[in-house]
């Protein structure tokens, strides 16, 4: 399948809770291929979640290895099925944008390190320790599985010195 169209807000699926994948079958393999193609198509995209292409299942792909923020610290291409953050620590603010909310960016606070449990494309149980930009990207994509957009997490209206100093 070719790259899919990225749904943009106010498409209702973007605010819905995605269902867990029960069985990894051909349908899921096809979905993963679509997600990968869509990610590769998006300019500078480092991740796509299934709800963004209209599929309400807990599947997303992340790859920050080509990004200048993540190139030195990543697990390469990640196919995440039923992903779950089981530990998080630290916090940092980054200005995020999202293909599903064009023409807008905002400062979002994310954990700087997460431990993630998930199934890969073959259904094997995996656990990784992700930090830095990769951790941010994973948290952003996982939010899509819960119907949460970065707009729901913006922490700052402007770059006020006083509001920022806590995070340095």
């Amino acid at each position: 399948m070719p790259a899919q169209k990225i749904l943009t807000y106010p498409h209702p699926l973007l605010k819905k809770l995605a269902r867990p994948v029960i069985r990894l079958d051909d349908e899921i393999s096809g979905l993963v291929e679509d997600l990968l193609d869509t990610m590769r198509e998006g300019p500078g995209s480092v991740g796509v979640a299934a709800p963004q292409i209209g599929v309400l299942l807990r599947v997303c792909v992340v790859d920050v290895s080509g990004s200048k923020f993540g190139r030195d610290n990543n697990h390469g291409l990640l196919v995440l099925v039923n992903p779950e953050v089981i530990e998080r620590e630290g916090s940092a603010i980054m200005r995020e944008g999202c293909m599903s909310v064009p023409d807008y960016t905002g400062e979002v606070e994310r954990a700087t390190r997460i431990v993630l449990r998930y199934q890969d494309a073959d259904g094997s149980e995996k656990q990784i320790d992700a930090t830095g930009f990769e951790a941010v990207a994973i948290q952003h994509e996982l939010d899509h599985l819960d119907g949460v957009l970065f707009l729901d997490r913006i922490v700052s209206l402007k770059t006020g010195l006083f509001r920022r100093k806590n995070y340095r």
Partner: protein
Amino acid sequence: MSECRKDNLVHFAVTIISKDRPGIVADTTEVLYRLGCNIEDSSCTMLGGDFAIILIVSHEKPFAKGRLVEEYKGLQERTGLSTYVRALSETEVCPVKEEGELCLVSVYGSDQPGIVYRVTRALADRKVNITDLNTRLIGTKEEPVYVLMLEAILPAGMAVEDVSELLENLRKELNVEITARSITPVSL
């Protein structure tokens, strides 16, 4: 918006400044709501003891600027806030989209005349386009400290390091701290 088709609309810039109190935004926007104006873009913040509102509003044609002016005159008489309304030309309405790297420059040091002017002139001369800027006077009466924060889009080919280099002389001359860093949003 990816496209800018607003032929059927007339646009105004509305500026309102008032001594700060709860309810200024509500009072101001109630007028717009009553007149059927849409707020297309806005920025509102506290400045000193005042609250400042800048709005770009639109209304379907035909709509006379006088109606806005008249309504705000009434509000001004009742509440003491000061307002200014200006009609926008069509070329002002669509946002300019620039693609360069986004950069945050922070400047701080002992208060002295010319910090904002000197820094922004140096940036303007290199075609750096400021998108957001705020300043604040902090510190003590004896030792006032001036803080300037600005965000700017760099022209094609310019990197954040070039901005640091560009402002290096000024840093020495004014004896202030100047740092530039990339805040280009991450696309997810």
